């Protein structure tokens, strides 16, 4: 079953703009991870944020986590056409030693 729900399902922006994707989940977590998938290929790991963290940065990516609201957001700044992909959030249960449960994903299109 899916734990996360991404919002929006699809997002279209102009190159140079920022893109924000949201993820909500239902149960307690050990960590939350974001992935990118290009055209039905394998998943690229973007960032992991632990339940005791509130914000993490990696290059043009910023991830926030609000455990009280059971939600996370992924911000991509200064987007590029190459950022066009599907983005998924996935949660790890409190034990931290079990497979991730994935949300439905957001399809991002960056128009040059």
């Amino acid at each position, binding site marked *: 079953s899916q734990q996360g729900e991404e919002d929006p399902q699809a997002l279209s922006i102009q190159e140079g703009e920022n893109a924000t994707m949201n993820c909500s989940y239902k149960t307690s977590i*050990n960590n939350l991870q974001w*992935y990118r998938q290009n055209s*039905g290929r394998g998943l690229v790991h973007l960032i992991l944020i632990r339940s005791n963290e509130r914000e993490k940065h990696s290059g043009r990516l910023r991830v926030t986590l609000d455990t009280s609201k059971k939600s996370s957001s992924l911000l991509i700044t200064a987007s590029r056409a190459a950022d066009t992909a599907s983005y998924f959030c996935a949660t*790890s249960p409190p034990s*931290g030693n079990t*497979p*991730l449960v994935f949300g439905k994903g957001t399809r991002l299109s960056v128009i040059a």
Partner: protein
Amino acid sequence: SAVISQKPSRDICQRGTSLTIQCQVDSQVTMMFWYRQQPGQSLTLIATANQGSEATYESGFVIDKFPISRPNLTFSTLTVSNMSPEDSSIYLCSVLPGQGGEQYFGPGTRLTVT
């Protein structure tokens, strides 16, 4: 991190046949998983394949349809048996090298059943 390869990368198969997908990891990992991604959908966990024990299947997936082998800490296979068009999906293997850490994915096997 872990580098994962899968074979084949894609295949087109006839209904009623079986396909075995191989997953090779560049380091020893205890925890390995198989996921399915149906067209336009998210990832669904098929089973957990830890070395030294029988695979554990999620609800809706059975061993007769998706037999899994895990002979050592760097290799696993997933067989899709008696295929039907509904089995057309991307199949991905994944590993969890460390407790509570990042989970890594292979490039996937795109299966089309005609």
